[in-house]
């Protein structure tokens, strides 16, 4: 008896028991579909994080200070940074949270004290007005640039330009509004107020520079620029390497993608468990099927079926079941993922390798859990099987 013959026989016995076959497949269907959907969501979120980081500019470097008491960045250090070969520009910032108020509406936002170079270093764009000038830095002018969210919170639909906002009871003039950059890594880039660094030091009460953004000349000089920054930091603050860190976007991207990879793996793992449970379901039904069809097995053996034929018949039945379940699961999984990407804000990233993997895994499970019942069927004694009612 050849394979296509066994296949036909399996399809036939599945056809005669459609409801049961469907219920048997349900476990596999749910398993495969959930693997595909969850992994798509996981990979989608990892993709969107990477896109965001990329949009920040891949030649951005950051020097962040974790302990501002021991590592005090001064003008001199920052000038040293500026003179480094691979560095195009640097932008030191001080940050703090402030209450901003316009008439009756008030909001708590993060204030960034920046220099005129901040706009170009961070790759930001203005939707209205202009950015800070060096003169305003020196004069400690009370001018601010609002993030797009802050502008819409404080001024709703009105034009924010040339209006005044109250920060800590002091009036500041709005000279510009940033274009929306979206949320990245949990903090909104639109919910900010940018002021001259000298002004912000007073408004937030923090006089130390917590972070310096540096822009490498091009993507190829990022590595070198990073070592140069580290060199300056080591000579300026010997033995304090635990209190500051220098990183580039690629490091950040690696960290983020390792986090989201773990996340994806976990989601996939949980979904795989349901695949496994589906496989056990197939085994259960096949075992029931073997004892139900004992007489049939007896007849087949009496007529001349050998062990291999019976084994193949039941094994192929299990594999066909899991295979059909896998196919349905793939279709449903892709359908759900498509629906999610259409009707929600989640980013979905299809992966054909995962789709193929989950399908193959479902077949593998069919084989694994089909062998036991099939072996049981093939070992039945024909005399006893024939006598079975």
């Amino acid at each position: 008896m050849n394979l296509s013959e066994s296949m036909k026989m399996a399809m036939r016995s599945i056809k005669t028991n459609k409801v049961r076959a469907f219920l048997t497949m349900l476990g596999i269907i749910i398993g495969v579909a959930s693997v595909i959907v969850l992994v798509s969501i996981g990979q989608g979120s990892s993709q969107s994080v990477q896109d965001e980081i990329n949009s920040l500019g891949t030649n951005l470097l950051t020097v962040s200070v974790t302990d501002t008491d021991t590592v005090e960045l001064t003008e001199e250090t920052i000038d040293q940074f500026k003179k480094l070969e691979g560095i195009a520009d640097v932008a030191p910032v001080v940050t703090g949270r402030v209450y901003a108020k316009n008439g009756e509406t008030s909001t708590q936002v993060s204030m960034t004290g920046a220099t005129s170079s901040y706009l170009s270093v961070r790759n930001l764009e203005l939707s209205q007005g202009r950015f800070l000038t060096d003169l305003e830095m020196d004069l400690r002018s009370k001018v601010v640039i609002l993030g797009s969210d802050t502008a819409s919170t404080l001024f709703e639909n009105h034009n924010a330009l040339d209006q005044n906002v109250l920060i800590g009871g002091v009036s500041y003039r709005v000279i510009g509004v940033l274009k929306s950059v979206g949320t990245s890594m949990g903090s909104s880039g639109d919910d900010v107020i940018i002021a001259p660094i000298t002004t912000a030091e007073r408004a937030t009460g923090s006089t130390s520079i917590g972070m310096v953004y540096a822009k490498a000349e091009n993507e190829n000089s990022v590595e070198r620029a990073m070592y140069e920054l580290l060199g300056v930091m080591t000579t300026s603050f010997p033995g304090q390497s635990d209190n500051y860190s220098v990183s580039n976007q690629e490091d950040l991207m690696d960290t983020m993608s390792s986090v989201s990879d773990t996340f994806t793996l976990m989601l996939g793992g949980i979904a795989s468990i349901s695949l496994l449970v589906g496989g056990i379901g197939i085994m259960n039904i096949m075992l029931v099927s073997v004892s139900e069809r004992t007489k049939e097995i007896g007849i087949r053996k009496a007529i001349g079926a050998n062990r291999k034929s019976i084994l193949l018949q039941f094994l192929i039945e299990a594999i066909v079941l899991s295979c059909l379940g896998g196919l349905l699961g793939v279709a449903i999984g892709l359908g759900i993922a498509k629906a999610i990407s259409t009707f929600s804000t989640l980013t979905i990233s299809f992966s054909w390798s995962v789709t193929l993997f989950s399908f193959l895994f479902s077949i593998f499970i069919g084989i694994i859990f089909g062998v036991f019942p099939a072996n049981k069927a093939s070992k039945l004694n024909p005399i006893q099987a024939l006598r079975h009612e």
Partner: protein
Amino acid sequence: MAVCQVAGEVSDLANSIIKITNMSKLYELGGETVHALQDVCLTIDKGDFISIIGPSGSGKSTFMNMIGCLDKPDTGNYLLDEKEVGKLKDNELAAIRNIKIGFIFQNFNLLAKLTALENVELPLVYRGVSVKERKAVAVACLDKVGLSDRMNHLPNQLSGGQQQRVAIARALAGNPPVLLADEPTGALDSRTSKEVLQMLKDLNEKGQTIILITHDMEVAKEATRVVRIQDGQLFENGGDWIEPERIDEDGHALYQNQ
């Protein structure tokens, strides 16, 4: 150890299809040893129509399983179509069953989910015959038993007699040297029983070797040769055993008439 009857020795070896010598089978049943078969000897020639008769518990079923290669004897030899089958492995026995023996069962034992045609094809499927060829053979066999118009019916759409005819067609499909019928009329009414027996007789006339196992004397008499099995022992010429009983019966009838 009983010695085999001379009849077996005398019969032309080249002409015998089944030659069983000193076959024994023991069963352990609840700690007791049951001699299901004791030193059974039987020779069946090509073209024979032999009945094996015996009451239930006589070892009849065990003997049928032995002849049908469904079971292996503890001791003794079994030569089927010049092949020693007593010591074969399970898979080899399956092949022997497929090629050498056509089974006809009391309860027809058709596969309920397959049509008559597919049931008849089944032995050939396991033999690995091509789709086209086996269909032609199956159609021819169904035609032989007069069911060519019922080919695509499922067993539950057929009457008992028709089902048994499908079973006979299935047994014939593999063109086996031996037909082994186990109480083929047991589940049929007397009219269809007669039809089925007539069909077996017709087959025998065309040269088919048939072994009929039954507990019914009326059925057994249809065969050309009757052997009797009782308490695991085989007695050649069951007719001798029948005659006195028939005399008794006749006597009883006579008595009634008086």
